[in-house]
């Protein structure tokens, strides 16, 4: 009964317009993204989609024409034919040709995705229930990244907080991953407890974070900015609440950030070798809170 009341209250709130504007009606298609791979994938997606639309127009056209024309109510007299070898050969061969046409660009893109050679920076991503750990391999910098406090508060049952008032609701973290702009970054993905999956739609690729496996993906973000994604493999109760935020910064800015992180990590490690955090102060606080 209480649940019904709450649902009624929520839907009434929406109907009288107290929910702030949401501008997502236009989000109909895949994002083009900001990496060479994401653009290539978008192009391939668009090509395949339009081929499908063209086939659909032809096939549905014939179906609709048949339904409109050959009606018993219009006195249509049924023909008696029940096969045509020519037609059957034709509509077997044409799809084969179309598929070959699709397979060639697809195979090419698949090869590009697989080629992570020549990367300048390697980041190891580890999925936990329910947060991410980022480690700049060989740099001595590593930190955890979990759902931002305000989102985490608002998403509790009966929080009383309208999600629309929370900036980047469920898509904000305490410590974002920071990467350099225009640099090929190799990401090694693994899982610590169960399987997770790391995905930033604007980068084009997702890879599963599997315990015992180290998977690999790469991206080269051309545009500075903040890019958001989520865990995309069901990983338990809070699967929906471990977002991914990546800040792409110009090379010099990134280098300065990394140096500061390294210095902070060394400072944190110096007094006590037992402290497991090697990150700057706010991150260290969150790590402590999370553990």
């Amino acid at each position: 009964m209480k649940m019904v009341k709450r649902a009624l209250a929520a839907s009434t709130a929406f109907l009288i317009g107290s929910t702030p504007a949401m501008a997502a009606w236009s989000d109909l298609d895949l994002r083009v993204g900001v990496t060479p791979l994401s653009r290539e994938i978008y192009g391939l997606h668009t090509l395949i989609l339009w081929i499908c639309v063209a086939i659909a127009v032809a096939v549905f056209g014939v179906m609709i024409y048949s339904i409109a024309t050959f009606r018993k109510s219009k006195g249509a007299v049924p023909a008696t034919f029940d096969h045509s070898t020519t037609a059957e050969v034709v509509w077997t061969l044409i799809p084969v040709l179309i598929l070959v046409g699709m397979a060639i660009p697809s195979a090419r893109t698949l090869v590009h995705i697989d080629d992570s050679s020549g990367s300048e920076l390697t980041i190891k991503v580890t999925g936990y229930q329910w947060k991410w750990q980022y480690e700049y391999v060989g740099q001595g910098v590593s930190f955890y990244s979990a759902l931002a406090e305000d989102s985490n508060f608002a998403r509790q049952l009966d929080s009383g907080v309208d999600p629309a008032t929370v900036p980047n609701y469920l898509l904000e973290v305490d410590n974002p991953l920071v990467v350099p702009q225009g640099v090929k970054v190799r990401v090694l993905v693994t899982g610590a407890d169960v399987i997770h999956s790391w995905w930033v739609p604007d980068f084009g690729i997702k890879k599963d974070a599997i315990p015992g496996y180290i998977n690999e993906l790469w991206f080269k973000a051309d545009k500075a900015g903040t890019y958001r994604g989520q865990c995309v493999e069901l990983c338990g109760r809070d699967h929906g609440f471990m977002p991914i935020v990546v800040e792409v910064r110009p090379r010099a800015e990134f280098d300065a950030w990394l140096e500061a992180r390294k210095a902070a990590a060394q400072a944190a490690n110096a007094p006590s070798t037992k402290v497991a955090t090697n990150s700057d102060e706010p991150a260290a606080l969150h790590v402590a809170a999370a553990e």
Partner: protein
Amino acid sequence: MSATHTHVHGDAHEHHADHGPAKGIGRWLTTTNHKDIGTMYLVFSLIMFLVGGSMALVIRAELFMPGMQLVDPGFFNTMTTVHALIMVFGAVMPATVGLANWMIPMQIGAPDMALPRMNNFSFWLLVAAFSLLILSMFMPGGGPASGWTLYPPLVLQTGDALPLAIFAIHLAGASSIMGSINIIVTIMNLRAPGMTLLKMPLFPWTWLITAYLLIAVMPVFAGAVTMLLTDHFFHTTFFAAAGGGDPVLYQHVFWFFGHPEVYIMILPAFGIVSEIIPTFSRKPLFGYDAMVFATASIAFLSFIVWAHHMFTVGMPLSGQMFFMLSTMLIAVPTGVKVFNWTATMWRGSLSFEPPMLFALAFLFLFTIGGFSGLMMAIAPVDFQYHDTYFIVAHFHYVLVPGAVFGIMAGVYYWLPKWTGHLYDMTLAKLHFWASAIFVNVLFFPQHFLGLAGMPRRIPDYSTQFADWNMVSSIGGFGFGLSQLLFVYLIWQCARGGVKASAVVWDGARNSGLEWTVPSPAPYHTFEEAPVTR
């Protein structure tokens, strides 16, 4: 040889029980009659359809708007998991088995199924299986919540529900295997004289192929879940990397079962639609042989495409290439089927009774699901689609307006034959239009959500996904409520109505043996084999 023995035994039994069904509840507990068992399967599947559908409505209610309003995230995961298990194993599969029980003996001119006692047993096992599955939701630690795919290591975190859910799967699997053996033995041994395999109607044909698929893959699934059980209780490490096992191995084994499983759900619907379109086009099925071979090709290909569900697990490039190309190949026989159905309507004389309406909706909407399937086969693009709502949209398009509409078309086609009454055509058309419209309102926007980046299996989402989720939820409630019409209509038709003739549909005059027996079909049909063609 053993089948011949069964046949003789079956005949002796029929003569003994000539006077019709027993009275009371005993009839249903102990029946060996294919029509009774078919009815029980169909009623069971309808109940499960409503139970699984209610769970879907819990999901759609929580997703109506951003923020958590109704349920705990853990319970949300239980809903997605049990909804899927119930719909796959409790609603769609038993419905097709129910139709097979009713129609295959009548379509091939057999007096009953070849193994009637096993038939009864396989039905009641199913009741036990789903009682256990539903009970598992109330165990300490919560219900199964790892998704219907039961991926380790997550599934091993399940509480006391795990052994119940796995035992339920074992029982449902044993039931399916028995049902399949029965169908194969019946079709191979009890066809009427003169009915060679390539003269057999399409519904028995698609079920014959489905039965082989089931026998091939159900034991594989049983093996996989048994390994989960020993990993959990007996400290084996089949799927635990820390003990030298491999979590991805489970996914390979699961999808070796799981991909044929999707064809197990759709092939019988192909068969039903292949019966209905010719009847209401008043024209023979176009390319009968091609239809049979296309079905067989799809079944064969279904064994070598499984890893297209796993492009993101980090397969080698060669593996991704192979599974991408083999998956794309399935478009060829599937295309042949769609073209043949279209060619059957071409220059026919069409009328639009409820079975035909559902078959036509199947034709259009299943094809849309086929297109999104082809898009997902393209491995590089699947790196974007995988595990998003685009996938949810795809498999619901092939399963709801695909398999479920196919089953409903079959029910509307044969219901007068079962009950002896015509149902309310106006109400049935209302049910059709409500279902066809709401199913699109429900699932089409999910394509947009997936492309915009919304992951599947999440109980809450960021505000950018709010609009289409609300549309989808409205469609969900509309679709769910429309099904109450279906229940009412079946109940009404079972109780009475205008008497149906033996042929029922004027276009069915030469369509098959089931239309040569009176409506309702007598308790025992074809005690003497009919002569065919």
